[in-house]
C-alpha cells in the first residue's frame, strides 16, 4: 500500500501526466491483432483494407483505448477505476503520434472516500481528436495520507 498511502487528492481541473505514444507502426498493429484476439483484417491486411475502400490499414480503436487506460493505471491502482468509457471520433492511420490525456472534471466526497470524474482524450500530432472519453475513479478514504495532512506538508 506504499503507493496509495502517498496519494494526493487532485483538485478539480487538474491535468494528469500526459502519455505520448507512437509513431504507431504496422508491427504495433500486428502485435495488437495477435494479443487482443481482434483479427479483423482491416487493421493488418492492406489488400483487404483497399478492397474495403480504405487507402491503408488503420489502428484498432481499442489499441488507443488501451493506451489511454495506461494514463489511469499509471496514476491510481486499477481497482479504483469504476467506469471507463470512450467514443471513437476518427480512425488512426499508421505513423500517427498520439497524446493521451486526462483531466479531473469533478471531485465529490462519499461516505468513505472520494469519487473523481475525469475527461479523457487522445489527439494526434495535428491535434485531431481520435478518442473522447470519461472515467470515474473511487478513492478509498484510507488511501489519503492523513499524517501528511496533519503535519501540514505541501
Amino acid at each position, binding site marked *: 500500500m506504499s503507493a496509495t498511502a502517498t496519494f494526493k487528492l487532485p483538485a478539480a481541473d487538474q491535468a494528469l501526466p500526459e502519455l505520448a505514444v507512437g509513431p504507431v507502426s504496422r508491427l504495433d498493429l500486428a502485435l495488437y491483432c495477435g494479443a487482443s484476439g481482434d483479427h479483423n483484417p482491416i487493421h493488418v491486411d492492406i489488400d483487404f483494407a483497399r478492397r474495403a475502400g480504405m487507402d491503408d490499414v488503420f489502428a484498432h480503436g481499442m489499441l488507443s483505448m488501451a493506451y489511454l487506460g495506461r494514463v489511469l493505471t499509471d496514476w491510481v491502482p486499477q481497482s479504483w477505476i*469504476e467506469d471507463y468509457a470512450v467514443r471513437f471520433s476518427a480512425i488512426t492511420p499508421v505513423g500517427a503520434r498520439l497524446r493521451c490525456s486526462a483531466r479531473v472534471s469533478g471531485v465529490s466526497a462519499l461516505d468513505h472516500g472520494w469519487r473523481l470524474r475525469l475527461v479523457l482524450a487522445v489527439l494526434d500530432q495535428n491535434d485531431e481528436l481520435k478518442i473522447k472519453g470519461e472515467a470515474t475513479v473511487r478513492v478509498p478514504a484510507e488511501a489519503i495520507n492523513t499524517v501528511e495532512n496533519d503535519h501540514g506538508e505541501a
Partner: protein
Amino acid sequence: MIDTSHIGAALPAFEVEVERGRLALFAKAIGQTDPLYSDLEAARAAGHPDLPVPPTFLFCLEMDAPDPAALRKRLDIDIARVLHGEQRFRYHRPAHAGDRLRFEPVIADIYAKKGGALEFVVRDTRVSNQHGEAVADLRCVTVVRNPQGAES
C-alpha cells in the same frame, strides 16, 4: 437496414479462461511497462493473486467467443463496413489470470442515423467470474457504414 426485431435478443453465453501468457503479450502490445501486468512476482508483491486483467482486456476476451462473428452473422453485417463507435466498461471487481469468466451478451439496441447511411448496433455484455460474482458490464457500439443508404 438491420432488422430491429433483434433488439433484446440474447447472443450465446460463453466462458473463457484468463491466461497468464496472453496477459503478458497484451501488456507488450499496448506498451505497458509496469511489471505488475506481466511479471507474476511483481503482481503478487502488489497484493494480486496473479496477473491482473487490465482495463480494456475484457473486450478482447469477449472476442474469444466460440463464434466471435455471432452478432454480425445474426444481423447479416459485412465486417468490411463496421467501425467501433463507442466502448464502455463498468467495473465491479478485479479479474486475474486463472479466472474463468462468463460472458452474457445481449443486443441492447439498433438504430440508424443520417437517413440510414450509418446504423448502430449496441451490445451489452455482463461478465461474471467462476464464483458467480459480477466482474464488469461492457457496452459496445458498432457503426455500420451503408454507402447506398445515403442516397435513399
